[in-house]
């Protein structure tokens, strides 16, 4: 399943019950019993090894492998070669060779089946996780997004000012190979264009534009026609207004930027970087800002950070992690949020499991009539789009227009008080999640051999004793992995919180944490609300991950359900 996280409370399919819950095996359908019969008709002696001739499957595999490699190289290589990314080319060619080798030999059979899914797992799941962990040790975020070079460029271009006597140009924005360029025509004191000094400005710098005559000029003394360039018409230029306003042609001391759509001026950087002292000097005030490699900022001797707060990404070691436990605004709330988080996840699992199990037990009887219609109704919540139903529930709890208050004539501010908001959330999660538990419990119930329950009733046990001593333990063995993954899922059930309460209600004096916030939604707000602190957010995700992983591993250790893995 691609996104178990978006279905209600269960985190997977219903297949587990049948799988781990049915030690006795047999096969549904006809074809199973046919297969071996068809085989025994042949004359292959049982003791012989697999024949080595070329089979159809082998040929097909070979074709698929070669096709895949060809497609991969054909599709992936050109952009990498174009941008001179030779490391990328190397990785891609190695990957292609690896795939070809794997599927063209007869060895490494398990890998042939594991590889396709694993490649996706590595690229789109594992790499992001590793990136997140490595981000957790940096100050990555607003103000620290790029490299030092990018920060220097941003500082210099951000401090550009027009100085007296600087060159000004008649500007014609144009396209060359689809990219924006500036055609620049200097004007002399009288306002006449100087054709032999015309220049082309690209994002890389200035170059000469020779061989122009008056024929290239328009009435307003702009360049209107230059071979090899597609000069933008007025409406086209207006449409690209933002792009033109942001375009800068770097020069030795600054940059040439547009001033309106038909003029350009040369600007000079007030703050200049000097590699010799690894510092930025403000030419107006004379202040020197040396680079602080530990913080990723340019800081002056008196401790002022270069205005604009432009810094670069640096490693900060464990700072983000220690901040979680030492920063008062963070750690003060961390514990209470954590407790509610555990309670929420536990209650979600327990209530859904209890209700699902009761329903499954109720319908699990040969005497019971109408099971089909009941079952159909009971699984409906699971088939409804969960994101939409979360929003519907939110609106049903609405104090003024909500269905629940309307129906009963109440005026309860359900989502406005901590206790009722928490109760509402548990109820919503119960509604969304119990059908899944009902399904898996039904499956697991059917897998329990009748002889066992019959034997216990013959031995004089009541129905309740039989259930407690025989049925429930067997069910739990089968369903524990699902309960644990349901717990892990609900521990991070961002959707339920975000769509129903958005973490609220909030205390009047504390807008950073709401009564129903889970760690994940709390972190989300801390990290992305206002100034993005992505490095810090990554650190908190790593902590959350560790918590869930530890709790789940303990859960699995205690259940015997991993037996098969260890065999």
């Amino acid at each position, binding site marked *: 399943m691609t996104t*178990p996280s978006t279905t209600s409370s269960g985190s997977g399919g219903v297949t587990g019950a049948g799988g781990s819950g049915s030690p006795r*095996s047999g*096969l549904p*359908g006809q074809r199973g019993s046919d297969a071996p019969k068809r085989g025994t008709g042949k004359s292959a002696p049982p003791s012989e090894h697999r024949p080595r001739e070329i089979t159809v499957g082998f040929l097909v595999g070979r074709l698929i492998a070669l096709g895949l490699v060809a497609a991969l190289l054909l599709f992936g290589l050109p952009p990498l070669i174009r941008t001179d990314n030779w490391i990328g080319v190397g990785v891609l060619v190695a990957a292609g060779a690896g795939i070809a080798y794997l599927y063209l030999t007869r060895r490494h059979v398990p890998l042939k089946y594991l590889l396709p899914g694993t490649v996706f797992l590595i690229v*789109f799941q594992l790499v992001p996780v590793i990136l997140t962990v490595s981000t957790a040790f940096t100050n990555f975020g607003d103000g620290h997004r790029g490299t030092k070079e990018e920060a220097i460029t941003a500082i210099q271009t951000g401090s550009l000012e027009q100085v007296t006597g600087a060159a000004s140009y008649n500007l014609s924005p144009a396209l060359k190979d689809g990219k924006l360029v500036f055609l620049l025509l200097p004007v002399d004191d009288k306002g006449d264009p100087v054709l032999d000094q015309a220049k082309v400005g690209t994002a890389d710098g200035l170059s000469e534009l020779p061989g122009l005559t008056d024929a290239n000029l328009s009435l307003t003394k702009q360049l209107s026609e230059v071979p090899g360039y597609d000069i933008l018409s007025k409406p086209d230029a207006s449409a690209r207004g933002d792009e033109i306003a942001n375009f800068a042609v770097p020069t030795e001391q600054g940059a040439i930027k547009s001033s309106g759509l038909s003029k350009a001026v040369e600007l000079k950087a007030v703050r200049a970087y000097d590699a010799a002292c690894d510092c930025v000097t403000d030419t107006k005030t004379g202040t020197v800002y040396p680079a602080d490699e530990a913080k990723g900022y340019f800081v002056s001797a008196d401790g002022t950070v270069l205005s604009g707060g432009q810094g670069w990404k640096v490693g900060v070691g464990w700072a983000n992690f220690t901040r979680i436990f030492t920063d008062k605004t963070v750690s003060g709330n961390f514990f209470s949020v954590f407790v509610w988080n555990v309670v929420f996840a536990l209650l979600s699992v327990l209530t859904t499991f209890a209700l699902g199990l009761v329903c499954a037990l109720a319908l699990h009887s040969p005497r019971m009539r109408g099971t089909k219609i009941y079952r159909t109704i009971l699984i409906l919540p699971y088939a409804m789009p969960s*994101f939409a139903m979360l929003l519907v529930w939110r609106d049903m709890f609405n104090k003024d227009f909500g269905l629940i208050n309307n129906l009963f004539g109440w005026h309860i501010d359900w989502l406005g008080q901590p206790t009722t908001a928490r109760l509402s959330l548990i109820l919503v999660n119960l509604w969304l999640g119990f059908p899944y538990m009902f399904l898996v419990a039904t499956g697991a119930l059917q897998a329990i051999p009748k002889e066992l329950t019959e034997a216990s009733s013959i031995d004089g046990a009541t129905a309740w004793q039989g259930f407690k001593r025989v049925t429930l333990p067997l069910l739990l063995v089968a369903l524990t992995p699902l309960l644990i993954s349901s717990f892990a899922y609900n521990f991070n059930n961002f959707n339920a919180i975000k769509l129903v309460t958005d973490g609220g209600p909030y205390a009047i004096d504390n807008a950073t944490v709401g009564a129903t916030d889970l760690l994940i939604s709390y972190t989300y707000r801390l990290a992305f609300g206002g100034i993005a602190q992505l490095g810090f957010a990554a650190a908190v995700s790593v902590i959350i991950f560790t918590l869930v992983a530890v709790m789940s591993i303990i859960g699995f250790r205690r259940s015997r359900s991993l037996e098969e893995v260890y065999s």
Partner: protein
Amino acid sequence: MTWFKRTGWRHLVAVVVAIFSLFPIVFVISAAFNPLGTLASSKLWPTGASGENFSHLFSNTAFSHWFLNSLVIALASSFASVFLSFSAAYAFSRMRFRGRRVGLMALLLVQMFPQFLAIVAIFILFTDITENWRYIGFDTPAGLLLLYMGTALGVNTWLMKGFLDTVPKELDESATVDGASHVQVFFRILLPLVAPILAVTAMLAFIGTMSEVLMANIFLRDPESKTLAVGLYGLVAGERNTNFGMFAAGTLLTAVPTVGVFLYLQKYIVNGLTAGAVKG
């Protein structure tokens, strides 16, 4: 009294829970057909009926685009993810190799990392991809599909492995002895046997993808390339009272295909897995 003890309580439980299951759905249906189309005017039982909300939905929003996008993405991703996870489950269930146990544990662990919090990293990754290969970058269904495939292995692999473990090994062993290659065993013997469960898993994956809102929200920014979840959320994110009728209509239309398939497959969902096992 004995009747109640034997079957009466069963009906009581079923009826009470059925009412609990149904009432939000009835509310959505009634709101969808409510001619006023606001949250405040929506009642549990419809006060009138009109198709106005539906026609507004199609004329005022790009609903049909959203619907088609969702359908294509969800179908493709559920098919692909079931294939990937079943292949892996086959290897884990039938073969013994070095790293098998570690691999299974690693799958569980990686799966537990809230993918949502890796969203920053994913965003950076796809910014690079978009620069180099536009066709699988942002705003493309193909890119979203690739991202979804990242979680194809995981819980599903575990569940399918568990199911495959219950299919007797003698079956494929005898076929192997008869000269079938592992590919033939995979496609000709095991696949047909587990087809019902594959259909069920595919459908659950389908439901999951249909409801996926977070990644899709970041991925598809162009209004016409949005999915249902993203589009419908946008309807009530700001104007929650006035657009409620349209939202309910959209929810209903979203649910129709899934509920249909769900009901069609329900005998497999409950019985398909275990029927064979019980007959033993």
